[in-house]
């Protein structure tokens, strides 16, 4: 009943799968997001002109505070603005933000999101 060959093959398959998953994790750009590049992009795109000092005091209450917001949400929001009206099912439609994000690459957006999450601000998660 005991089949050493089969057991070996199973071990090899499991090891192979584990390595593949590990490689995926390493190649995930989120892990490599650079908050310092994000800071440079936030400054060059003048985000504080609307979102305020430290991205925590927007100039009008219609604009969101960003400091400390989850980076994965900020990244998704930036991607949605980039889709804009060209994707009526997922895009976010805002003329200012659409113009702001047009030239950003995926990794730029991840860097900006990482920088925003690193900032201390008013945002809290409460029930």
């Amino acid at each position, binding site marked *: 009943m005991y089949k050493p060959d089969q057991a070996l093959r199973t071990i090899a398959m499991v090891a192979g799968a584990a390595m593949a998953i590990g490689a995926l994790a390493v190649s995930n750009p989120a892990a490599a997001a650079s908050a310092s590049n994000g800071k440079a992009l936030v400054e060059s795109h003048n985000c504080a002109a609307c979102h305020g000092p430290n991205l925590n005091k*927007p100039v*009008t*209450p*219609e*604009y*969101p*505070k960003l400091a*400390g*917001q*989850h980076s*994965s*949400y900020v*990244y*998704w929001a930036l*991607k*949605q603005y980039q889709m804009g009206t060209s994707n009526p*099912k*997922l*895009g*976010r*439609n805002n003329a200012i933000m659409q113009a702001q994000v047009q030239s950003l690459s995926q990794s730029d957006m991840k860097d900006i999101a990482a920088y925003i999450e690193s900032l201390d*601000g*008013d*945002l*809290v*998660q*409460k*029930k």
Partner: protein
Amino acid sequence: MNSFVGKHVVTAALAALAGFALNAQAADIVGNAKAAQGKVAMCIGCHGIADYRTAYPEVYKVPMLGGQNAQYLANALHGYKKGDRHFDTMHAIASSLTDQDIADIAAYYAAQTASSPNNPEK
């Protein structure tokens, strides 16, 4: 007497203008954070769980709402209700809210700070 009346007319006009500017969507609706305590059960199911993530159409942590500007939150809920912002769950929930509910919920989250207690009703 005249200057007394005049001052009050000016004050009233300024207050009306300020109210209109702050809340162009519904000038006569004022959010009541306390009234929202019983209205946020559906919000808490996702936004009240630390690090809660949604999986479609992309895996991301749902946004933190506490301390956010009330006007931004109200606009977001109106956007989801109308279909200008896209997320099926938020569309379904926002569609069940009245303008007053939206104003109350926006005021509720805007008022939260790091020292706010969690909702005693939830």
